[in-house]
């Protein structure tokens, strides 16, 4: 347990920049996702075979989720949301294999949160112009710092939620595996590793979609 609480250890350095376990494990997740994508896009046919059916079902599910949450006109967000979901899902699930999940590192999760922060404000300014910034100071000017704090709190809470859940899950799994040997860690891992990973990546993606949709489309 102490090894997890100490943070990711530095595996090697490039030009003086420390490359930690989280970075290397994210490379692993990226490699897995890219290889899966290359496998599944070979031989696409009009009448899908079994493998293509599964992939099409997944894509339809993600597309339906984006349409339901953000509305039909925002369906262009689907590739980013789908990629983010699978990146987070596979990153969270690395705990099953004994590797340290990259999302159990606050730097990684706050980075994903900052990307969401830039998405929210970029698309809001693109849709509404500068009245979006002025809208934060209405109806009273002293609401401006509170709105700014609220906007900063969004990526912080997104990152903190993902980080806290994954770190806590890793610590508890390490403690259970250390205390009881035979059957219990596998059963506990169903909740802490599988369900928690799926739920947390789903939550992150849903909140990202909701924040972007509200900032972009909320007509007053």
């Amino acid at each position, binding site marked *: 347990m102490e090894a997890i*609480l*100490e943070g990711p250890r530095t595996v090697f350095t490039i030009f003086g920049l420390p490359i930690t376990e989280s970075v290397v494990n994210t490379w692993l997740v990226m490699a897995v996702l890219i290889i899966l994508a290359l496998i599944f896009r070979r031989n696409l046919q009009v009448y899908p075979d079994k493998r293509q059916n599964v992939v099409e079902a997944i894509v339809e599910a993600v597309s339906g989720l984006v349409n339901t949450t953000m509305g039909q006109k925002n369906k262009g967000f689907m590739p980013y949301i789908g990629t983010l979901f699978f990146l987070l899902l596979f990153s969270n699930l690395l705990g099953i294999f004994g590797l340290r999940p990259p999302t159990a590192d606050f730097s990684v999760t706050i980075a994903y949160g900052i990307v969401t922060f830039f998405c929210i404000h970029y698309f809001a300014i693109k849709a509404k112009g500068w009245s979006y910034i002025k809208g934060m100071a209405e109806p009273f000017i002293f609401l401006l710092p509170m709105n700014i704090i609220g906007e900063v709190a969004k990526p912080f809470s997104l990152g*903190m*939620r993902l*980080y*806290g859940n994954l770190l806590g899950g890793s610590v508890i799994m390490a403690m259970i595996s250390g205390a009881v040997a035979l059957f219990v860690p596998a059963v506990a891992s169903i909740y802490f590793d599988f369900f928690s990973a799926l*739920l947390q990546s789903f*939550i992150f993606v849903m909140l990202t979609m909701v924040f972007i949709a509200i900032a972009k489309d909320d007509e007053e």
Partner: protein
Amino acid sequence: MGWNELTVAAFAVLGAGIAMIGGGFGSAIGQGYAAGKGVEAVGRQPEAQSKIMTTMLLGQAVAETTGIYSLVVALLLLGIVNRIL
């Protein structure tokens, strides 16, 4: 007054325990309330069960956030103890 390391470590461990009181209590009550409302909604309209369950899980995970904040504070305090001892 001089702090020796044992005192700091002792207070850090105590603080970690105290931090989890509010976190566990508040988050459990909030999430339980949301679960109760979810179950009530399913009782009223059983065919919407999967949509209700998705919304309920979403709401519960957002309500858990402040409990997670206190967990992170507790883990940070335990990390301090680890570095001292």
